């Protein structure tokens, strides 16, 4: 499994032939490029944060204030965002929709992955391939027909429109990931349980699932992030301000006519990113393993 491989290099050759390189050479070939990469990759976040706490006066006056720094930090933009806009509602919507669709997808994916990987019903391989292909169907070609369906089903402008459509990209991903995890559980464990008289249901809930908790966490975190970040469905299926999710709300409601309130926009972007970043920082290893696992399996 990818999860194990990413961390366990054989420690006998730790560092490889790195000792053959001199320090100055390493500075030029490794540390300097790395520094530039890190600065470029992190700069937009820095800029987002600094703008979110910058008073409007400093924000547009580059002659008297260095734009890279803030002299009188203010919480005004954040206060405006949290108390004068519908932002808290969008945050709540996003949390509800992401949690519900993640839970739904994970539930469906556990059964599907177990069936494909372990029950090995006839045609399991073809179904596995179909799941993989389903993962490759992008939302950009589905949103028009889905919007027609959502409208006809009477789900338009309700959270259910998103809770039911997000699994179209979450289930294939979770199933594919969990298949890899289930594959790593020895068959012998299941055979022992079968001999002891366990039913398939008991095997799944008492043996397979407890052993694949890391996989479930990986899939869950990743699915949550994917649904948190989803944009095109949320933009198409939701109309009223109070039902919007954070990405759609920030873009469509905070951007008004000609005057951009950059401070509030950046504060909205920052606060909207924070939950996934915090979640990510707690589960970096799971996150990385699910990302690489999805590609490697």
């Amino acid at each position, binding site marked *: 499994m990818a999860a194990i491989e*990413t961390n366990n290099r*054989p420690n006998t050759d730790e560092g490889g032939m790195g000792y053959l390189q001199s320090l100055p050479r390493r500075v030029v070939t490794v540390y300097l490029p*790395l520094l530039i990469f890190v600065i470029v990759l992190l700069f937009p976040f820095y800029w987002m944060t600094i703008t979110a706490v910058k008073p409007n006066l400093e924000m547009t006056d580059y002659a008297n204030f260095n734009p890279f720094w803030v002299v009188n930090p203010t919480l005004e933009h954040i206060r405006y965002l949290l108390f004068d806009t519908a932002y808290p509602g969008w945050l709540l919507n996003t949390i509800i929709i992401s949690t519900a669709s993640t839970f739904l997808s994970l539930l469906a994916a556990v059964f599907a992955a177990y069936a494909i990987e372990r029950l090995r019903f006839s045609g399991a391989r073809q179904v596995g391939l179909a799941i993989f292909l389903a993962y*490759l169907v*992008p939302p950009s*070609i589905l949103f028009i027909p889905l919007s027609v369906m959502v409208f006809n089903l009477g789900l338009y402008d309700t959270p259910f429109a998103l809770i039911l459509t997000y699994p179209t990209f979450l289930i294939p991903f979770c199933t594919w990931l969990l298949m890899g995890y289930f594959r790593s559980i020895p068959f012998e464990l299941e055979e022992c349980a079968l001999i002891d008289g366990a039913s398939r249901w008991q095997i799944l809930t008492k043996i397979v699932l407890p052993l694949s908790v890391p996989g479930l966490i990986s899939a869950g975190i990743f699915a949550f992030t994917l649904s948190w970040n989803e944009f095109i469905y949320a933009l198409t299926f939701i109309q009223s301000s109070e039902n919007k999710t954070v990405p759609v709300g920030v*873009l469509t409601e905070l951007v008004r006519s000609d005057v951009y309130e950059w401070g509030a926009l950046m504060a909205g972007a920052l606060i909207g990113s924070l939950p996934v970043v915090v979640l990510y920082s707690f589960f970096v290893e799971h996150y*990385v393993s699910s990302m690489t696992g999805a590609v490697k399996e």
Partner: protein
Amino acid sequence: MAVPSAAIQPRPSIFSRILSRWSESRNALGFGFMLPAAALLLVFLTYPLGLGVWLGFTDARIGRPGIFIGVENYEYLWSDAVFWLSVFNTLLYTISASILKFALGLWLALILNQNLPFKSFFRAIVLLPWVVPTVLSAIAFWWIYDSQFSILSWALMEMGLIDHRINFLGDPENARASVIAANVWRGIPFVAITLLAGLQTIPQSLYEAATLDGASRWQLFRYVTLPLLTPIIAITMTFSVLFTFTDFQLIYVLTRGGPVNATHLMATLSFQRGISGGQLGEGAAIAVAMIPFLLAAILFSYFGLQRRKWQQGGGD
């Protein structure tokens, strides 16, 4: 599972016999286990896919079910300069962004694969652009690219490299370059981290053996790293190409297709015509026109996977 109670003996015994036979049959049980996922995917993925193809042959509008008009939508698109411009833009966007993402991502992966202090810390930081919602980081780029208060223009002017502000999103050529840069910024971490996972599976002993044989650093990379990394490169880049080709969010936030349609991708054009303009049929036809390109990428991925199995010496 069903535990028959002693009081009503005969009927539960039949029932439980059926149940036990059913639960012993792999196919029946497999069907039951597959049901939730299959139902959701068939209803909300397979059916809409078919419906989208059907809509492409109709003149449906928002609030009015269309009638079958054959290939009229496609005939119209064939003679529509904006559509062809969007195809060109999509290809340009996908190809240039993918090449840049691959080159920079591989470079970053090779750097991170060195024996660095705080390695896992750097890996965690590097992945951040990919974790944060695209729309929200795109809004940050929007501010960075602002025509009046762009921090990039300001910094370059302070350094004396340019003498007037760059109109990042207002000029067609600049706008294309700007959206590609933002896409590359977001895509590098994905490529770098997946390739890093691939790099870490290459045994150090191969490099040592090659060095003893007198291989140069370039030869080490060309004849050891690259061949062993090829399968994972193929799959990573297929995903990357797929997601770039169907990109919508970044363009929608930064330019909405402008200026003068210079950055319209097929996905954003499809949204503009189908949802904003209400011409569902035409929008669906544009979306369907993306499918051949996607199929090509998927076939590429499929053969990438095949090759990987063959390399590992396994049939299944």
